[in-house]
């Protein structure tokens, strides 16, 4: 009915009739806001508690009131968490774990993205014989629980002589990241026009030249998405780091666990909270600063161009 009325009315008449203004606060709208604020509070409360606890002294914490703001603000727990707290045998804070995590995350992000991009490019443009079967097998890998593969992988890497080292943990992350990385890039490239690739074929580009000159420059949005997924995934990983990284390369998550489980005397809640926030800081910051790109990348991948 609405559409018919609009069509029948000439455009000239429109300004003359004052349209009723849309009401700002309908009951439904208020309900939505109440729900959204409630949900936001629910998710923010733990973070708030962690933040205020990490800025209090132990006396204040013992005094009770978990939600109260610190009476005497202090960053001492943060300093301790970063450089003094005991992570198992040594007491040098979790900064060692931070740098270990950086060393693991950087190659474990760059390599899977590069290889995933090449995989996706080959699968969606060159379509080698059996490409779909290949892709199916790769995807199947994503559904096998990590636990099933840990022991075989330990044996395999031990056999290769790199078990418990930085290359080992990077290789493991590379293998486990491959299905999703390939899927991401394949679907993104499938949304690019095939004619673009054809034009490049006629212009004489080979496999690598078309990839480097034509396809890769178009991949920024999906690379950002892939980087976010891979960085958060690798940074938050616990079990793989614990098993494969070796004593010298234990990631921050494992160190954090050691901090919290090491009890010598009183439990330093404020230090534990500070260490936890420090560990969560990288993924948190990443989401914070790349939210726009993240949404854009997902939209770019979802909508066919």
């Amino acid at each position, binding site marked *: 009915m609405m559409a018919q009325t609009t069509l029948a009315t000439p455009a000239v008449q429109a300004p003359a009739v004052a349209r009723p203004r849309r009401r700002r606060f309908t009951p439904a709208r208020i309900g939505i806001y109440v729900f959204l604020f409630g949900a936001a509070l629910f998710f923010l409360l733990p973070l708030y508690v962690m933040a205020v606890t990490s800025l209090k002294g132990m006396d204040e914490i013992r005094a009770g009131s978990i939600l109260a703001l610190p009476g005497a603000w202090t960053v001492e727990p943060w300093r301790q968490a970063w450089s003094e707290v005991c992570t198992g045998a040594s007491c040098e804070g979790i900064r060692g774990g931070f740098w270990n995590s950086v060393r693991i995350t950087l190659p474990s992000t760059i390599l899977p993205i590069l290889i995933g991009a090449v995989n996706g490019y080959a699968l969606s443009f060159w379509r080698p014989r059996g490409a779909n079967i290949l892709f199916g097998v790769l995807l199947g890998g994503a559904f096998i629980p990590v636990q099933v593969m840990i022991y075989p992988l330990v044996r395999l890497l031990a056999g290769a002589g790199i078990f418990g080292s930085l290359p080992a943990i990077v290789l493991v992350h590379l293998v486990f990241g491959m299905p999703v990385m390939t899927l991401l890039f394949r679907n993104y490239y499938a949304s690019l026009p095939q*004619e673009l690739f*054809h034009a490049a*074929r006629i212009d004489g*580009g080979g496999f690598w030249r078309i990839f480097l*000159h034509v396809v890769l*420059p178009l991949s920024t949005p999906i690379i950002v998405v892939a980087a976010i997924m891979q960085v958060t995934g690798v940074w938050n990983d616990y079990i793989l780091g614990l098993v494969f990284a070796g004593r010298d390369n234990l990631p921050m998550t494992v160190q954090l666990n050691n901090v919290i489980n090491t009890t010598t005397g009183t439990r330093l809640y404020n230090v534990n909270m500070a260490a936890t926030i420090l560990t969560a800081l990288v993924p948190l910051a990443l989401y914070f600063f790349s939210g726009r790109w993240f949404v854009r990348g997902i939209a770019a991948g979802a909508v066919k161009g």
Partner: protein
Amino acid sequence: MSNVHLRKLSITLGGKPIIRELDLNVEPGEFLVLLGPSGCGKSTLLHSIAGLIDASAGSIEIDGQDMTLADPSERGIGMVFQSYALYPTMTVKDNMSFGLKMAGTPKAEIARRVGRAAEMLQLDALLSRKPAQLSGGQRQRVAIGRALVREAGVFLFDEPLSNLDAKLRAELRRELKLLHARLGSTMIYVTHDQVEAMTLATRIVVMEKGAVQQIGTPADVYERPANRFVAGFLGAPAMNFIDGEIDLHQRFSARGLALALRQPVPAGAATLGVRPEHVRIEADGPLAGAVTLVEPMGNHQVLWLDCGGQVLSAIVHGPDVYTAGQALRFGIDAARVSLFDAASGGRL
């Protein structure tokens, strides 16, 4: 200027035969248009000539060399796509020089060729822009320029004007024709638009269901269509088809209509094909009908006539005013009709 010979070419896509044993010779300097409805295999055929789709049997020869298995870049072709397919991250200049850079052409030569193409297509002012900053017509010009700089023997066009609005399409169509006259290169052009085919082609290849229906000059294909499909596909409004009988005295008769034929044809069931412009409204015409609809086109009018149950369209020029329901007399130009076999649809 190269020639292209296709011999017994077959193309199968996903187990489905698209083109079956097709033979086609394209002469040097020719503007050959592949015309047909969507899904007739014309684009597939063009992509196969370009080397973007593998032929399952037969051979493709370009400039005297067997190119059936050659890489697209080695075939001596330039191609223009419907979606322009410009590299979005490169400037116009880089788009045009990409292929030459890949081929390792010296810088000075690249600059010369890009300059020449840009001058020919009036792209000089746009060379440093990105494709996103161009209009549709400009984008397609760049795409044509990118093909031109290759200085290829054969240029392939895959519905290059389909994404443009009507005015721009007519403009670029003229430019393409001038370009062909200037370069004299062999061009193979795929379209479903009969106006493009008629105006551009030196020869038209009408295709349907993966097979060639007729090859001929535009006039030939229009005046003497080889079968009912070709006759119905070309011309707007479409040719009038009337099913009837030819008797032993060379007389065609159908419900509400009879016509003495000029050409000797075998007696039997047949379909008469009459172009709307060959239906003449005359006060003393031998046939009678009533106007059911008038479509004014500006420089002419299309009359839809009911003639004893047969619907006929007629094109009339001149200022006469017709109204629906009006009875009038008309004649059919017997020298210019086409007759088709009732069963096979082939021309008699």
